[in-house]
């Protein structure tokens, strides 16, 4: 969820900005404060804030590779140029040390910084505006008790005229839903907690919902799936190809471990999300899972049985696939079978057969391609599946061949069209800024 190619189509935006109420674009600067001392926050509030920050995954966007946590500077590649995340440590001049709680709340809810400048909606204030006051106060307490780091991110590099922030006023007018979160009375407390977290701090929709031309979530298609950093964020509604196999237990475990034996590994931008959730109390993650599975329309039955539907014996059309995709079969045998073939050792450790992964069953081949190109890198000594990148080994044609083979061998879905183009595109999208 690190980031989503949001932001607006250039032309659309220009028009919006031009006709957008000019008066709205002028936001006041809020008074700078002296950074409050650590002692001015109580520990319980800070601890609560830490959990909320983990659910929001602040550190993922606000930490540059190898940089200090929360000090910003992570480049976020967009079709409109590159944005750099900001320093949210309580440092007085380069961070948020001089921000009052009120200034912080305004930023979180309205996307306007203390000085009165608009923030880009890559920062998910469209979700954070649902967050309750005391939770924002806890988050504030958490951030203000971090180690102050003096660091200024590189300037954003956006195509004109997007560098002109007042244009965002028009965008907000159209897409910022300021209604507070309203619990559904016919749902359980757990479901409502999940809804609050998912719609608010968790900002799941930012990746898992398709965006319109202006880079805002299509509210009519909430959770119908989206694209993030060149990866598909699978649908979290009934159209999820493996919806039937998700139960609350499974999804909870997946979100906290990044691995599910009947689904796959959290790869791409989802990897850091599950890493963040591994530190969150299980109850909170379970609430998230309750809500999401209800959106997939599997929650209730699964909850009743406490288990998902048992998977059918994993599909394996090995012979058919080898006959139709000879080149792909050779590549698979030499490069993939060591881990994913029948009798490979990883199958004994509860790692899913390829036939059970969501990526191969999806309508879009993007995640399969990205996983092949980028692999699943090691995360600082953590025990988790490792897969090497094949970007330097396979040509686009090789990737297309093996992808086509996988689809036939491990699914009963129709062949993906135009795989070669999809590989070329995925290579470009997956490139780090």
């Amino acid at each position, binding site marked *: 969820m690190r980031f989503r190619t949001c932001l607006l189509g250039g032309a659309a935006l220009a028009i919006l900005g031009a006709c957008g109420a000019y008066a709205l674009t002028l936001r006041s600067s809020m008074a700078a404060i002296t950074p409050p001392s*650590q002692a001015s926050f109580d*520990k319980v509030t*800070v*601890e609560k*804030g*830490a959990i909320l920050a983990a659910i929001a995954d602040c*550190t993922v966007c606000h930490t540059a590779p190898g940089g200090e*946590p*929360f000090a910003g500077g992570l480049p976020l590649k967009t079709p409109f140029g590159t944005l750099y995340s900001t320093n949210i440590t309580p440092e007085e001049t380069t961070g948020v040390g001089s921000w009052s709680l009120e200034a912080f709340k305004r930023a979180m809810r309205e996307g306007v910084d203390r000085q009165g400048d608009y923030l880009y909606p890559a920062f998910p204030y469209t979700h954070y505006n649902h967050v309750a006051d005391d939770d924002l106060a806890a988050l504030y307490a*958490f951030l203000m*008790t*971090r*180690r102050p780091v003096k660091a200024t991110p590189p300037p954003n590099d956006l195509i004109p005229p997007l560098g002109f922030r007042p244009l965002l006023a028009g965008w907000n007018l159209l897409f910022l839903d300021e209604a507070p979160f309203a619990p559904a009375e016919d749902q359980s407390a757990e479901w409502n907690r999940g809804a609050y977290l998912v719609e608010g701090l968790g900002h799941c929709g930012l990746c898992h919902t398709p965006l319109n031309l202006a880079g805002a979530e299509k509210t009519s298609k909430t959770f119908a799936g989206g694209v993030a950093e060149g990866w598909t964020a699978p649908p979290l509604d009934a159209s999820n190809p493996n919806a039937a196999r998700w139960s609350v237990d499974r999804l909870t475990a997946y979100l906290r471990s990044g691995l599910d034996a009947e689904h796959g590994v959290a790869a791409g931008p989802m990897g850091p999300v599950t890493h963040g959730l591994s*530190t969150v109390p299980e109850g909170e993650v379970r609430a998230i899972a309750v809500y999401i599975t209800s959106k997939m329309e599997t929650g209730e039955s699964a909850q009743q049985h406490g288990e998902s539907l048992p998977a059918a014996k994993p599909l394996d059309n090995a012979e058919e696939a080898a006959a139709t995709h000879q080149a792909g079969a050779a590549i698979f*045998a030499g490069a993939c*079978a060591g881990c994913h*073939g*029948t*009798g*490979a*050792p*990883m199958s*004994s*450790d*509860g790692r899913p057969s390829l036939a059970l992964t969501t990526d191969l069953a999806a309508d879009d081949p993007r995640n399969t391609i990205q996983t092949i190109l980028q692999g699943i890198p*090691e995360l*600082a*000594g*953590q*025990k*988790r*599946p*490792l897969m090497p990148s094949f970007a330097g080994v396979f040509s686009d044609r090789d990737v297309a061949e093996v992808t086509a083979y996988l689809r036939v061998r491990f699914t009963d879905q129709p062949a993906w069209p135009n795989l070669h183009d999809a590989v070329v595109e995925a290579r470009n999208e997956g490139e780090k800024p």
Partner: protein
Amino acid sequence: MKRSASQLNRRAFLGAGALTVAFAMAPRALAQLPGASGGTAVRPDLPGDLKSTPMLDAWIRIDAKSAITVFTGKAELGQGIKTALIQVAAEELDVDPGTITLVTADTARTPDEGLTAASHSMQDSGTAIMNAAANVRMLLTNAAARTMNVAPETLSTSGDGQIHGAGGKRLSYGEIAASLSLHVEAQPNVPLRDPASYRTIGTSWPRVDIPAKVTGGEAYVQDLRLPGMLHARILRGPSSGTRLKNPPIDAVAKMSGVVKIVQNGAFLAVVAEEEWTAITAMRALQAAPFERTAPPLPQTGVVETLTRLPSRPITVLDAAGGTAVPVRTIKARYTRPWLAHGSIGPSCAVAWFKNGEMTIWSHSQGIFDVRRVAADLLGLDIENVHAIHAEGAGCYGQNGADDVAADAALIAHELEGHPIRLQWMREQEFGWEPLGPGMFVDLEAAMDDQNRIVAWRHDVWSTPHNTRPNTAGGVLAGWEVTPPFKAPEPQPIPMPEGGGDRNSNPLYALPAMNVVYHFVPEMPMRTSAMRSLGGHMNIFAIEQLFDELAASAGIDPLDLRLAHMTDQRARDVMTLAAERFGWSARPRGDGRRGCGMGFAQYKNLEAYCAVMMEVEVERETGDYRVKRAVAAVDCGQAVNPNAVANQIEGAIIQAISWTSREMVTTKPTHLTSFDWGSYPILRFSSVPDAIEVHIVDRPGMPFLGTAEAGQGPAGAALANALAAAIGVRLRDMPLTPVKVKAAIGVI
């Protein structure tokens, strides 16, 4: 003294085939203990392994052209032993090391010096070769004196392989050797060269094995290629205590390129012309389900697992003394999970059964035991089995080497005439090699009002650290064939070497010490020797308790150690490390940075080593890294200082990996650590910014084993540095970032 790479290249490795040279070996018997000499001491008055093999020509031979061959029963494991032994021989023979060819462990050619283990090689073999060489130089000098008709005292050597007399007279070693028998017993107390005039010892002579290793030479058993060689793969369940259920043998036997499926009881292997075919066939067979043949693996932590099993208490130390009244008592428990050796290259062996004779190339640490095991397994006369050491990937104790050698022999026995190369797969090495035992230590100490430690109680629990095979009952294949061989009852290794209790007796001068080893013979997971054995755990515990005591008394941890240390050499390494580290001016713990130290004399018998480390912790995540490590080591006479430094650096990095992140994980049915994703070890991004190793020079002093001396002190230094940094002490390995973060809390 420096030699160019080309001169060093391709010096005798891989034992040059099955060349059989029979010559004088002392009879041998005796069960093996790690590091113990292989043979019976027939001449206890002689130094090192000359005790069991006193004949000089068992160690050194010189031909008429002055070519010198030196024989050792020890093996190159990556510790640089070849280079060091050549240096020792060159020094005492007084020749250029480049003129020496070294033959390592080979049952037909070299003395049986038992295992290459427990950092004993320099002590056992180095000492023997040193004295044998001195004997040979004396015999050459005496013979030359007779030929020249002068008194031996008038002759000298000058490092060029000649005996020099007055007036420019000289004789080359070859000329003399032609009529001199070295088939004589060594004499004790033969004069050694004066350390002040050493030419080779003490210099960092370039390692002889490296040029081939960096240019693609055939340096390893894995690289051995014999005419008509076939490739084999072994078929087993995912880990020890499992077996495959109904693998599709008939179908796979028909695969093109498959030569044979070897089956004997539960032993199953596939042999093919091409290695890739063997692997493909193996996968097809392995697609079968597996079943557990042993009790389920415990799913509890190490303390619960070990205390639930029967144990035998062994008193290591029971010293009462001192009368001072304790005023402060500290008690703590330290744990370590099961660890994997994790050699980068999985175990491999080549075996060839021809004309009733079996030849095995193996990277086992006990090549003479490989021979015994194979003879026992196959019912062959021991004389008909020949085992030759060939290097493998670094081994840090008993990994799969011995098992794979027996596997290969069993397969080769079924395919007479064909050399068989068998390499285990990565996951097989993880699943089937014996593990480094899980352990825990309960430690309690008390101080009096003068800050003297007046009471010390150490209880350590562990499964066996030595299940090395010397019969077919010690290897996997032996348990699988019909009828199966019975595994011998594991035995503890007695102190002073010790197994789980190795280094449980602190070197510190403490008036009252009570140390008990709770030996747990049953092994829920197969365990055996892993580098430093119990030393890593015991030193981790002892050295942390010292820091806790120091903190409770408000004393510098170094000062507390020095106040309880009377051994001057121990004091010297600690103070040298402190000086080079800048201990007194070190950054004090500030929540993020901290420094710590660890010290031990390995086994209280071998090298002294002190390690100091500085760590930096990221409080938000608990991630941390070692910024720098400084070690000081005293290994007696350092033969090759750079090689000593290399060993200590390696020990530090390996110990950081063990201590900070490693843990074998299980399900009831099998181990779930099977690759580098499920068993992560330290990578480049996490190794320290800098490591310095300083060597205390001890010219002429006896060699002290070095290769395992760094493990314990480094693990302890890391734990102490972390505690200094974050103000909370972690005692349960691995010291992961998650545990560090939990200890730090939110702020």
